[in-house]
């Protein structure tokens, strides 16, 4: 399945795009997504290691399966406030 990952702040700036498309197997988890994202965009490696991922605007962990057509976001360490 093809997924689109939203990027923000430093991650967006490193890649130069607001989102990236990745091809993942149907049973993919967030952990696999993290690996594939950094393979496709090595410039993200150190930031992606510390990043969280969100599915449908909810934080999830590496074991979370990725549903089809879900809204996925890479959340690098936050700095609001």
């Amino acid at each position, binding site marked *: 399945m093809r997924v689109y990952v*939203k990027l*923000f*702040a*430093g991650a967006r*700036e*490193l890649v130069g795009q607001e989102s990236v498309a990745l091809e993942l197997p149907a049973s993919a988890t967030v952990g696999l997504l993290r690996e594939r994202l950094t393979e496709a965009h090595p410039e993200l*490696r*150190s*930031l992606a*290691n*510390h*990043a969280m991922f*969100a599915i449908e*605007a*909810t*934080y999830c962990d590496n074991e979370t399966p990725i549903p089809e057509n879900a809204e996925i*976001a890479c*959340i*690098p*360490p*936050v*700095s*609001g*406030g």
Partner: protein
Amino acid sequence: MIELTENPLEPATLLAKAQSPDAGAVVLFLGITRRMTGDRETLCLQYEAYQAMAVKELERLKNEACERWSLTACAISHRLGAVPLGEASVAIVVASAHRGEAFAAGQWLIDTLKECVPIWKQEQWADGKTEWVHPKGNDEARITNDK
């Protein structure tokens, strides 16, 4: 009330809404764009959010604060875009019958906001560089632009 806005924050409005005969204590926290970080000078901060999720997370924090403490009011407003020196990027107002709960809830809300809510600041340094602030991540990957 939860709000993300590109406009200057209006703490007086938030305070007025929180004030009531049941609230013996109203606490306001403002996070302000500070000039100096160590020996580096900031010109401006630029804030960006994953807006749909940031609103959802702020609602979650507000609900959790209302469960943990007995609050009569709770409002969080975060500014996005450019926040000049001396202006507020975040305003948190909590009210309760007695001051202990309002202080505790206010402290918890700003501490947790800084850990969880998908909002990011970019430093615009006086030396012309810009830098996204990613605690932890930045130790290894400093996302710096020379302009």
